[in-house]
C-alpha cells in the first residue's frame, strides 16, 4: 500500500556530491512530486479535521436536544403496561396520566393512527383488515401506540390497515 519513497520513517538525505545534472534533475523532479503529494495529504487532513469539528458541533447540539430520548424510549413499555392497566383499574389510570403528563412536558407526543392515512414514516403495518367501512389505506386499528419525541419518531405506531 505504500511506496518506499513515501515511508517517512525510512527517509534519508541522498548523497548528491557525485551526481551529474541529469541525476540531480531527476532527484529534484521526484522531490517535487513528493512535496505535492504531501501537500495534498496535509490539505486533506486539515479538511477532515475541519469537517469532524463541524460535525462534532452539530452532534453536540443534537445530543442536548435529544438527551432524554434514550431514557424516554426505555420507559415506553411502562407506558404501554399502564395504558392497558388503566382500562381495568382507576389507580393505574391516575398513574398513567401522571407519567404521560411529565413525559409530554419533555416533548413526548403520541402518533395519530386510527382513522388517518397510513404513513410508513410514522406507522408500521402489521396486517390488513378487509372492511367496507373505511377507505383503502386508512388505518383501521392501532395495535400499539407510537410516539414522537421532539419531532423525532421514537416508536412507530403498529397498526392494521384497511383494505376493500
Amino acid at each position, binding site marked *: *500500500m*505504500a511506496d518506499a519513497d*513515501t*515511508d*517517512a*520513517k525510512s527517509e534519508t538525505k541522498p548523497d548528491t556530491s557525485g551526481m551529474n545534472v541529469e541525476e540531480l534533475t531527476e532527484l529534484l523532479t521526484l522531490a517535487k512530486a513528493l512535496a505535492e503529494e*504531501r501537500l*495534498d*495529504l496535509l490539505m*486533506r*487532513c486539515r479538511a*477532515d*479535521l475541519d*469537517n*469532524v469539528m*463541524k460535525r462534532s458541533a452539530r452532534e453536540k447540539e443534537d445530543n442536548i436536544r435529544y438527551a432524554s430520548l434514550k431514557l424516554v424510549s426505555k420507559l415506553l*413499555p411502562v407506558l*404501554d*403496561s399502564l395504558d*392497558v*392497566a388503566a382500562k*381495568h383499574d382507576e389507580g393505574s389510570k391516575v398513574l398513567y396520566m401522571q407519567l404521560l403528563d411529565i413525559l409530554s412536558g419533555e416533548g413526548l407526543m403520541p402518533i395519530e393512527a386510527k382513522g388517518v392515512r*397510513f404513513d*410508513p*414514516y410514522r*406507522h*408500521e*403495518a*402489521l*396486517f*390488513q383488515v378487509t372492511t367496507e367501512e373505511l377507505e383503502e*389505506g386508512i388505518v383501521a386499528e392501532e*395495535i*400499539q401506540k407510537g410516539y414522537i419525541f421532539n419531532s423525532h*419518531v421514537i416508536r*412507530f405506531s*403498529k397498526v*392494521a*390497515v384497511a*383494505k376493500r
Partner: protein
Amino acid sequence: MSKIIGIDLGTSNSAAAVLIGGRPTIIPSAEGTSIGGKAFPSYVAFTKEGQVLVGEPAKRQSVTNPDGTIQGIKRKMGTDYKVKVYGKEYSPEDVSAQILRKIKTDAETYLADTVDKAVITVPAYFNDNQRQATKDAGTIAGLEVVRIINEPTAAALAFGLDKVGEHKIMVFDLGGGTLDVTIMEIGEGVFEVRSTSGDTQLGGRDMDERLTNFVLGKFKQESGIDLKGDSMAMQRLREAVEVAKIELSSVMQTNLNLPYITANASGPKHLSMTLDRSKLDELIQDVIERCRGPMTQALRDSKLEKSDIGKIILVGGPTRMPIVQEFVKGFMGKEIERGVDPMECVAMGAAIQAGVLGGEVKDLLLLDVTPLSLGIETLGSVTTKLIERNTTIPTRNSQIFTTAADNQTSVEVNVLQGERPLAKDNVSLGRFTLVGIPPSPRGIPQVEVTFDIDANGIIHVSAKDLATKKEQNMTITAPHKLSKDEINAKIKDAERFAADDLKRKEEIEVKNAADSLAYASEKMLKEAGDVASAEQKEKIEKAIADLKNAQTGGEISEIKAKTEELQSAVYELSAAMYQKAAADKQEKQQGQQGAGQEPGQGQSDQTVDADYEVVNDKK
C-alpha cells in the same frame, strides 16, 4: 475532493462506511436502523401512487403492499429475473440501485459533499454476471463502482489481517438468515479465496423462533392461554424476545416482562419470565449444531487442516452471542479475532479499500499514540505531566516552570514516564540541566519546558530560560518498547495506588505551601520594617519558628495547623500595612507620590519541585 465510500450491500441488511481521519466510520441511515446495529433493511417498495421507499419505511408498509415491496433482491442479481410492479418492470439491478441511491444521499448529507464513487462488496461465490450486475446497479444509482471486493476480504481488511504477514484464515459469516463460511489465503496484499460453503436457510431468525416458541409454550402451560392468535400480544412478544436474546449476549439472565399481555373471562393476564443464557443455549442447540457442516465442508474443499488456519473472524449480528463464539472456537481449536464489530466489519473493510483507492491510506497516515504519560519531576518529587497517555503523535506541549530557591541558577529536568503522581514511582527516561539562570528570588525566573514527540515516537525535551534565551535539551529515542500487557499493568498500578498516592501528594503540597508561606512571611517582615509593631513582629517570628519546627517534625496535621497560625498572624500585619498605606496616601493629598507600595507577596502558589515551582498551570 470527494471521498470514495464503501458499501456492504446485503441480502437482509445494508450499510455504508467511509474513512474519516483514517478511521472507517459507519454512515448513519437517514430513516433509522435495524435493531442492534447500524445497518438498514434491504427493502425497496414501489407504491401505487408511484412513490419509492427504501429501508425501514419500505419494510413498515410491506404488508399493505405485498406486490410492490421487494426484499432479498440480492438473490436475483445476475439473472434475467424481472420484478413486475404496477405495470412497470424492473431488473434486479434497478431495485438494488434504489438501495444504493439512498446510500448515496445519506453519504452526501453526512459528508456535506458530493459522493460519486464507491467500493461495493459481494459474496465470495458471486460469479461474473452477479458482479457485473452489482456494478451496473451502482451506475444506475449514479455511483462509479471503482472496485468490487469479496465480503470476507472486506472483513479481513477491517480486522487488519492484511498487515500481519501471510495467513490462511476462515471467515464465519452468520447473519439473520444465512451462514457463509469462507477459507482464504492472505499474503503481500493479495487475497485468495480457497473455498466457500454455507447454509442459505440458517440464521438469527431461527434462534428468535426457538425462543418465541418456548415462551409461548411456557405461558400456555402456566395460564392455559395460547397467544398465537393475538396479533398485538405476538407483536409485543416477538420484540421482547429479540431484545432478550441480544441482552443475553452480555448478561447471564434477563427478565421478560409483559404485563397485561392479554385478557380472558377471568381478567387480565401477565407474562413474566426469567430467561437465562443456559436456557437460550439449550433452545438453539440444533441451530448452532447446523453450523458445523459448512465449516467442515469448507475445510475439506480447501484441502486444509484446522491447524493450518491461522486466524478466524466472525461476521454478522448473531456471532456476538457467546454460544456461537464458543462453538466456532471449540470447533477450530483456536481463539477468534476481536476488536471490530461483526455487524459493521464488512462495510468498514469496504471503506478501507475505498480509502486506499482514493489515496487516503498510506503508511504516513497511520498514527501512533504515547502509551504512557510523560512529564518532569517538580518540587516535592512529584510528577508534573506534560503529555497525557494515549495522546496521538506527533504532538508537542509546553509549560512554564520556575525556581524553588532564591538565587537558584540552574534547573534539572528529570524526564519521567508513567502514571503515578510521585516521581520515584515512574520511570526516568533521562536528565539534563539548564544553567545560567540569572540569580533571582525564587519564583521569579521563567523556564519554558517543551515536550515534542515526532511521528517516529522520538521524544525531544527542552528547557529554555525566557530571560536569557539560553536553552538545553535532550533527545530520547524510543524508550524500550513496552508490551500491551506491561502498559496495562502500569495503568492498573496507578489505579490501585491512586488513593495512597493522592494522600502522599497532598502531604507534599502541604509541605510546599508551608515552605512558601514561611519564605514569603520572612520577606514581608523585612519589607514591613517599622509598620510592624514589636508585638506583631514577635508574633510572626514565633509563628514562623513554630512552623519550621513542625516542618522538621514532619507531622502533617501539625504543619497544617502552624501554617494556618502563621497565615492569620501575617494577615494582621498585611492589613496594618494596607491601612498605613491608605493613611499615607491621604496625608500626601498635595500630589506627592509616596512609597507604601506592595503588600507582601503572599501568594502560595502550588509549588512543585526541589528545582521548580509551577507558575502557569494552564498551557
